[in-house]
């Protein structure tokens, strides 16, 4: 089962790299933000998988904090972009 979970974690990590491609080329700032947000979700899942591969319960607390941090970062950045748009108008 551990090998299986490791393979899943690797596939998701490769997925995250592909999402970084969108974050790199994205024509607008919102595209980049979306790409980074998705990479964050994938990282969260990889952290949860690592919890069960290593059988270390405390990684789950890391995952909870990571979710909250990701949420705050995305909302704060999109509010920032919104405010910038207003200034230009």
């Amino acid at each position, binding site marked *: 089962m551990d090998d299986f979970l490791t393979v899943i974690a690797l596939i998701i990590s490769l997925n995250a790299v592909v999402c970084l491609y969108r974050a790199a080329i994205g024509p607008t700032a*919102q595209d980049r933000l979306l790409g980074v*947000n998705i990479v964050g*979700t994938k990282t*969260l*899942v990889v952290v949860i998988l690592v919890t069960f591969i290593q059988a270390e319960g405390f990684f789950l607390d890391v995952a*909870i904090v990571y979710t*909250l941090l990701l949420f705050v970062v995305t909302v704060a950045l999109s509010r920032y972009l*919104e405010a910038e748009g207003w200034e230009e108008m």
Partner: protein
Amino acid sequence: MVQDIVAGAFCCVGTFFFLVGTTGLIRMPDVFSRLHPSTKCDTLGACSLIVGMAVYSGWSWELLKLIIIACFVLLSSATCGHAIGRSALRGDIKCWRRKNGVEDGHGT
């Protein structure tokens, strides 16, 4: 043994939806359309992987924490999608439209 198989099936479904979400993120034409794969496929992918891990861990305290994480993911991805969409709308990004006359709605 049965537990492992069910957990593995959930993990496979989750990985499939992650792959679909990534494909959508690359293929879709504009920000608003890209919000769909990111808010739906990624949420379901993450949630079904979390459910798979919950089945794998069985009855333990980890289960409660996993449920909390799943609720956070559901709430935060919807709100993040909303926030990004709103900033795109206020940033005057035009919504991509199909050229009229070429396709009639549903496609085949």
